[in-house]
């Protein structure tokens, strides 16, 4: 008699409580920005940080005031946090309509899981839009012959920056060969200045060294084979030589003391260069804009020098080859409603890379990926740097996309982890090559 009574009561209690609990759990699930586009329009996630955040916000505001039915709502996230968040959101079907990314291996994962829209036919219907961009910028957006993303923003090669004041003081020239680098390391260490600044904790910063060295030593074909997953591609002698050179540089105190605890997100690596604590820095061209903003008048007074990456004796790579990000990319979530997709496409066509946005990028020291901007670049106060970048983007025989973006996320994480250990000298170049060889095809 008692038993059933209890269970009936507990059942009632459960029944009474369930709606609250479900409401509580679903509330967590839907409060994300991914679902904020209920009233037409589209949602977008973008990276925080200046100057790009302001540029994007202005572009969105302009678009929204002209297209009240297709309003874009944008949420900003920090770079490293965003990379994880967007993956999780896509996996949970909570992605925003517009997915910002870097193309390559990450985009491939999304495309193969049918999470992003195939934009090939849409680009065919809009040839003007397609022809507006540098043709090379479509490479990382194309998976198995289909275009899955809109290239946008600017081209960002990796550049060797240097502090002209320190070079003058030491009476030396920027390096042209690997030997120059090693002798400059000695010169600056004797002066009590760190030769190279590096934000090693971010790991992709250290990776930029390997990207250039492997290109200069073995040519672009070596990484191409790795990218295609050819057997034993990582065991190429050029990879071992690259690793050996890196450890030579680390052993000679080439990098600033404590480099493995400096993060790029804090921009401390850039501060070391403009505050005269380090003489050189290998970094993305986007740091030009942030140093211009943060470095008092370091850039404005012409103290920031820049040069292509030096050659390596006996190497196969063309010294004009570049590495870096050919563009940024935006895809459309295939889980979005038709209305949201239409709004996003409209924004792609009319809202991104408008004349105002192009001018804003150029003013912040970047080269937008649109054709016919030579005049604008030449009248800019940063024309020397802009033309240097433009020339690399336009004339480089090979422009290799950043490895961690080109490879699959699984291989990229293993790569970054092994690069970190290579720089710490806790593994040998041979072990590095072997460890990476195990990730081929993953």
């Amino acid at each position, binding site marked *: 008699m008692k038993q059933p009574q209890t269970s009936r009561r507990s059942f009632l209690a459960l029944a009474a409580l369930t709606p609250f609990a479900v409401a509580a759990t679903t509330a967590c699930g839907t409060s994300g920005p991914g679902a904020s586009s209920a009233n037409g329009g589209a949602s977008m996630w973008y990276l925080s940080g200046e100057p790009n955040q302001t540029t994007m916000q202005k572009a969105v505001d302009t678009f929204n005031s002209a297209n009240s039915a297709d309003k874009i709502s944008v949420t900003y996230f920090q770079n490293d946090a965003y990379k994880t968040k967007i993956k999780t959101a896509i996996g949970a079907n909570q992605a925003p309509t517009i997915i910002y990314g870097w193309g390559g291996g990450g985009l491939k994962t999304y495309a193969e899981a049918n999470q992003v829209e195939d934009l090939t036919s849409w680009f065919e219907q809009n040839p003007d839009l397609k022809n507006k961009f540098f043709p090379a910028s479509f490479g990382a957006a194309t998976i198995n012959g289909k275009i899955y993303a809109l290239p946008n923003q600017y081209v960002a090669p990796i550049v060797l920056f240097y502090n002209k004041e320190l070079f003058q003081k030491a009476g030396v020239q920027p390096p042209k060969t690997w030997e120059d680098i090693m002798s400059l390391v000695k010169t600056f260490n004797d002066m009590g200045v760190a030769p190279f600044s590096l934000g090693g904790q971010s790991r992709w910063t250290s990776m930029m060294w390997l990207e250039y060295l492997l290109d200069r030593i073995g040519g672009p074909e070596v990484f191409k084979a790795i990218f295609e997953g050819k057997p034993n591609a990582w065991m190429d002698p050029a990879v071992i030589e690259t690793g050996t050179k890196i450890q030579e540089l680390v052993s000679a105190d080439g990098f600033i003391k404590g480099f493995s605890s400096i993060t790029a997100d804090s921009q401390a690596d850039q501060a070391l260069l403009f505050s005269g604590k380090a003489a050189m820095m290998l970094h993305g061209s986007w740091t030009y804009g942030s140093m211009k903003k943060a470095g008092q008048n370091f850039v404005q007074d012409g103290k920031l020098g820049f040069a292509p990456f030096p050659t390596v004796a006996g190497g196969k790579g063309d010294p004009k080859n570049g590495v870096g990000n050919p563009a940024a990319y935006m895809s459309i979530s295939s889980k979005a409603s038709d209305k949201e997709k239409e709004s996003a496409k409209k924004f792609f066509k009319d809202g991104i890379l408008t004349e105002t946005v192009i001018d804003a990028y150029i003013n912040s020291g970047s080269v937008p990926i649109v054709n016919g901007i030579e005049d604008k670049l030449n009248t800019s106060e940063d024309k020397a740097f802009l033309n240097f970048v433009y020339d690399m983007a336009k004339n480089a025989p090979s422009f290799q996309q950043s490895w961690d973006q080109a490879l699959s996320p699984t291989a990229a994480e293993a790569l970054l*982890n092994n690069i970190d250990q290579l720089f710490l000298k806790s593994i040998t170049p041979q072990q590095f090559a072997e460890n990476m060889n195990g990730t081929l095809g993953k």
Partner: protein
Amino acid sequence: MSNAVSTAPRATARIKESKQTEQRKAALAWLTLPALFFFLVFAVIPLVGVLILSFTSWDGIGAIGAAGMDNWFSVLADPGLYNALGLTFLIMIVSWLVQTPISLLLGVFTAGSQRYRAALAVLYFLPLLLSSAAVAIAFKALLDPNFGLATGLGLPFLAQDWLGVPQLALGLVIFVIAWQFVPFHTLIYQGGVRQIPKSLYEAAQIDGAGTIKQFFHITLPQLKYTIITSSTLMVVGSLTYFDLIFVLTGGGPGNSTRILALDMYLRGFRANLMGPASVIAVILVVIGLVLALFLQRLGGKDKQGSQLEGL
């Protein structure tokens, strides 16, 4: 006769009484339902989910495919797992050795009723108010070898590459964990010490025991269960240290601070290997359960027994 008469109502009373306790027990049973419900939704179901995921291959985005025992074999054969396990236990043991004496002594000290002790206690408890991420960011900035506190104050011996040298980074992680969690355990010990009856100390004083003897013969034995509780929280908690280390070192330099919880996260959400990450999650759960049970056993079978016999 009189006996028979008097037992009858007593028996009915006893029946009534047992009926009442039964009813009370039933009421108590359904009071636990909300808790059980949340335990089911947020603990049991995810746990089963993780166990199932550990036998699948999934990149977190695409379709989930069966993988049999592959993940288990690959993770168990991976030296990275043993590195992470070793680091986890190292941090756990050293953290316990560092934190327990400090928080025990601080707890005893702050349990006193003097005004200055209360004022100092407020200062000691401050780190409790800060989130792990904030603590990590602050320490990272202070310890920066080029722009940190050492450069600011002109103390070159402090300008070590604290987070860039594997051994230093590990030591520093243990230090920051202690800095953050000692206040919490101090609070537990403070409460424990205040529960100890004054009469015990008075009796000891009459017997001529000094402060140190009182500490070892009264305070410490009386705190037995407090020590077990605090140790359980420390040991099981150290399995899940994540946020602090993630922000402070990201597992680096190299793999020198890549503890199990961090290893799980990096495999799952950075390398898109949800299967192997789930294997590590299952391992974490098992280790946590075993440790918690072991520590409960340390309390002895007479856990319900009183420590205050004769009072």
